[in-house]
C-alpha cells in the first residue's frame, strides 16, 4: 500500500468519524457544535470540490455557487448519510448532480439569452492586465490557448465520458470509486475512459483551423 493510499484511508476514516459526530450533534440539537465539526469536513474537501465543479462549469463564480450548494445540501441531509459509504463519495455525488443540473439550466438559458461579448483579447478582469512576476505573457497566452482547446475538446465528449475522464484522470479516482460516484459498472467506467481518451486525442490532434471550421459548421449548419 502506498503512502497516498494510506493517507486516503486515514482521511476516509476521519471523514466517517466527523460525519457521524455531526449527525449525532444535529440529532441532539447542538447546532453550533455540529457546524464547528462540519467545518473540518468542509476544509478537507473544499479544494477538491471546487476543482471538480470548475471542470464541470468552466466558470469560477458558478463553480463556487455549486460547491456552496453541495456543502449546504450535504449538511442538511446528513441524517440520510450511511456510514458504510465514504463521505467523499456521497458528497461528490451531490456535487456532480448539482453541477449537471446547473449545466442543464444554463443550456436552457442560453437558448433564450444572448451572451455578452468578451473583452479585448479574451481578458477577463483587471488582475489579468497587471504585470506579474510569473511566466512571460507569451507563455501565458500559449498556456491559455492550450487549456481552452482542452476544455473545448472535453466539452465535445458525451456527458458520461467527460465525467469518467475528469474523475478518474483529474481527480485520480479508481474505477471502483468512479463507479460508486456515477452509478456505472466498473467495466463500463473503463470503457468510457478508454473512449474518452481516444476521442480527446483525436480532437486535440486536429489543427485549430479544423476545429474552428467544425465549430462554425455547428453554429451555422
Amino acid at each position, binding site marked *: 500500500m502506498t503512502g497516498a493510499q494510506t493517507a486516503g484511508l486515514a482521511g476516509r476514516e476521519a471523514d466517517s468519524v466527523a460525519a457521524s459526530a455531526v449527525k449525532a450533534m444535529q440529532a441532539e440539537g447542538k447546532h453550533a457544535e455540529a457546524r464547528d465539526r462540519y467545518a473540518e469536513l*468542509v476544509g478537507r474537501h*473544499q479544494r477538491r470540490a*471546487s476543482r471538480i465543479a*470548475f471542470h464541470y462549469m468552466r466558470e*469560477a463564480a458558478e463553480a463556487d455557487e455549486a460547491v456552496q450548494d453541495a456543502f449546504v445540501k450535504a449538511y442538511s441531509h446528513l441524517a440520510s448519510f450511511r456510514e458504510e459509504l465514504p463521505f467523499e463519495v456521497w458528497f461528490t455525488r451531490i456535487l456532480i448532480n448539482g453541477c449537471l443540473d446547473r449545466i442543464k439550466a444554463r443550456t436552457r438559458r442560453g437558448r433564450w439569452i444572448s451572451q455578452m461579448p468578451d473583452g479585448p483579447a479574451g481578458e477577463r478582469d483587471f488582475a489579468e492586465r497587471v504585470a506579474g512576476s510569473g511566466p512571460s505573457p507569451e507563455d501565458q497566452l500559449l498556456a491559455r490557448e492550450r*487549456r481552452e482547446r482542452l476544455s473545448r475538446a472535453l466539452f465535445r465528449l458525451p456527458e458520461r465520458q467527460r465525467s469518467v475522464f*475528469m474523475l478518474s484522470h483529474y481527480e485520480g479516482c479508481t474505477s471502483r470509486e468512479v463507479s460508486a460516484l456515477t452509478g456505472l459498472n466498473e467495466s463500463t467506467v473503463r470503457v468510457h475512459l478508454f473512449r474518452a*481518451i*481516444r476521442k480527446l486525442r483525436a480532437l486535440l490532434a486536429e489543427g485549430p483551423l479544423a476545429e474552428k471550421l467544425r465549430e462554425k459548421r455547428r453554429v451555422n449548419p
Partner: protein
Amino acid sequence: MSILNRLRLGAHLDDAAIAALWAEGRPAHPHLNTCVACRNRFASFSSWLENLRADARTEADENFPTERLAAQQAQIFRRLEAAERPARVIAFPRFAEPLTSRSSGASRWIAAAAAAGLIVGVGVGQVMNLRHSLTFRASPVSDGRQAVAATAAGQRDPRLLTASATRDETFLSELDASLSRPAVPELRALDAFTPRAGDQAR
C-alpha cells in the same frame, strides 16, 4: 506460446491499444517489455495525459486561490446558520392563533351568545316599534300626525267625514278642468277643433 500470440506480441501496439492499456491501468503488457518503440509511445502518451491533468489542475487552482476558498467557507457557514435560524413569522394581531385551534366548548359558547344576542335584539326592536306606534297615536304633534289624528277622528264623527269628502271632490274637479283646457288662450280655438281620444271611442 502460440504462433498467434507470438505474432500478436510482435506487432506494434496502435493508439487505441495504448489508450486501452493506459485506461485499464496495466502498463505491464508483455509487448511493452520487448518493444522499445511501443514503450516510448506509451511513455509519451502517458506524459501527454499527465500534461492534460497538470494543465487542468493549474487552471482550477488559479481560479480558486486560498482567499477565495476562505470566502467560500465563510459563505457556506453563513448559509448554514441562516438555514438553522427559525423563520420570523409575523402573526396577525387578532388571529395570532388560528380559529380552528380553539377548544370546541369555547366556540359553542360564542355561537350561543351570538344567537342569544340576535334573538334579544330582534325582540327589543319589535317592542320599541310597538311603543313608537302607540306614542304616535296618543300625541298629535306634527302636521302628519294631525292628519292621522283627523282621519282617526273622522272615522268616529260623520260630519267631519262629509266635509273632507267635499273638499277632495272640489280639488279633483279643479285639477281635471285645468288639465282638459289649454292654459294658453290663443290655442283654445285650435283645441276646440281637435278630436279627443275619448270622443272617438264613444
